[in-house]
């Protein structure tokens, strides 16, 4: 599935200027920057709730609604929210929508509410939502932000449903609750347990790495595709504690030298600032 999305990428880059911003945002979320398959974001719900296709779909759609609405509100309030307290402000907005969704699900879809359990309130801390708020909605007008949230949410839904479908078919022989495998099929029940999520995700990550390697060999820009927790965009945007010390992790890929160069620039900048400060004093 992600293979398709990636082969289409270069075409969309070319058409980007002609495409209206709404469609561009939707396509971006669904394929180009698919939060699960390309950015590897939001792994906690991806691993935890995809025991069946329905659960994945429900989780994805719930997240989509929260994402789209919170993007709209954050975009509307982007000039009001002071920069220093923007994260708490975003969280308050997101948490309100999550609470609304939680109560709605409890009222109208109690079975889904029961099977998703604690992961509904945990949407508040889903890094896709906060990431979109920070990276897009807080800098862009309302309409594009809405479609950005919608696209990202639908991409997330698509990914979760795919993973859920694979796990459900292998783990219980069903698809969306209907028996599709022959009766002689013995379900591999490990796939509906926690290890199965890791197997399927690892498989997807392997496919993604293969695409990345092939794309790089052809000279395309593959820097957006992450693997594991480390984003390809470089260590400057990432503040994982102790990440710099893990140089063996990507020493071959030249990531460490890049990181070292970045830390150097940071160091020189701070030095300059200190000097300036000293001059002023």
């Amino acid at each position, binding site marked *: 599935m992600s293979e398709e999305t990636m082969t289409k990428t270069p075409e969309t880059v070319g058409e980007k200027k002609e495409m209206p911003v709404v469609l561009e945002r939707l396509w971006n979320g669904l394929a180009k920057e698919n939060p699960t398959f390309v950015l590897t974001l939001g792994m906690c719900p991806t691993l935890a709730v995809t025991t069946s296709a329905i659960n994945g779909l429900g989780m994805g759609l719930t997240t989509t609604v929260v994402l789209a609405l919170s993007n709209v509100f954050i975009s509307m309030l982007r000039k009001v929210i002071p920069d220093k307290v923007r994260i708490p402000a975003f969280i308050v907005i997101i948490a309100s929508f999550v609470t609304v969704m939680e109560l709605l699900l409890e009222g109208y879809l109690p079975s889904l509410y029961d099977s998703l359990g604690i992961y509904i309130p945990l949407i508040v801390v889903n890094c896709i939502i906060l990431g979109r708020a920070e990276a897009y909605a807080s800098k862009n007008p309302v309409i594009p932000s809405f479609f950005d949230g919608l696209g990202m949410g639908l991409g997330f839904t698509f990914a979760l449903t795919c993973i859920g479908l694979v796990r459900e078919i292998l783990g219980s022989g069903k698809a969306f609750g209907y028996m599709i495998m022959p009766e002689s099929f*013995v379900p*591999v*029940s*490990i*796939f509906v*347990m926690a*290890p199965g999520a890791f*197997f399927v995700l690892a498989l997807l990550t392997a496919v993604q790495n293969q695409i990345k390697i092939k794309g790089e060999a052809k000279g395309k820009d593959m820097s957006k595709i992450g693997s594991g927790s480390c984003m390809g965009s470089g260590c400057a945007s990432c503040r994982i504690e102790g990440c710099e010390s893990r140089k063996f992790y990507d020493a071959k890929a030249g990531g460490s030298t890049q990181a070292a160069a970045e830390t150097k620039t940071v160091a020189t900048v701070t030095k300059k600032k200190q000097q300036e400060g000293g001059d002023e004093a």
Partner: protein
Amino acid sequence: METKAKVSSNPHVRARVTTSMIMLAVILALMPATVYGVYHFGMHALMLILVTVASAVASEFLFELICHKKSTIGDCSAIVTGLLLALNLPPSAPWWIGVIGGAFAIIVVKQLFGGLGQNFMNPALGARCFLVLSFTRIMTDFHTDTFTGATPLAALKAGESPDIYQMVMGNIPGCIGETSMIALVAGACFLIMLGVIDLRIPGSYIASLVIFLLLFSGRGFDYEYIAGNLAGGGLMLGAFFMATDYVTRPITKKGQYLFGILLGLLTGIFRVFGSGAEGVSYAIILGNLCVPLIEKISWPKPFGRGGERT
């Protein structure tokens, strides 16, 4: 007189022992248990063993073919993995269990982590746990034509007292290769005499399990209970053939004793306090995962390092 100095990097002195020789020794040592298992459980067990071994070897060959790696099926390690896995299967398991298990052991547990010498857990046990979690009903069904009823270990846990003599001989239900204590110990003696394995891990494993059972089983010094626990289940197979796996055991002597004690404790905890009767395979897998930590604390310091700084 002119002499030519031959310059080469170390190691300069090599033993004539090769990987395939060690693996062949292990296969030979497993033969008594295998033969007894086939004699005891019938031709279906033989078929299952052959299918599992074939699946393991074929997976290794195909994976290395696809990945353009040098084929390593010549070192016989895949045969050992397949055989160990087969001995851990219940005799009534359908043939495709062996196929899936062999492929999982070789591809997921061994080759994906870099092949022989790189795997972090015993491939056969990893596959066994995968199968137990996936096909719980098949993997815990020890009923055959000749045996119905619980395994002696389960009976022991339920408070009954099984026949210890039959347990030592192996005339009991269980996995294909784990029933006969005497055949397994004979194979282990062969390996110890050849110097392939030593008693550090099995000895400390069994001793610490006995001490744990004496202290915490609540039965005190109950000869039948202790002997049943030693002869029943996969303890002998696990202690002598799985825990001593060169790849997944600690390197240092101190680490090996620690490893054995850890396995004994874990097995005791699973057997006494766990919901199931058996715990050897999970204990060894958890022990395998702790090996890097054990190495960290048991690694010897070079002379002159460490100590207090003044």
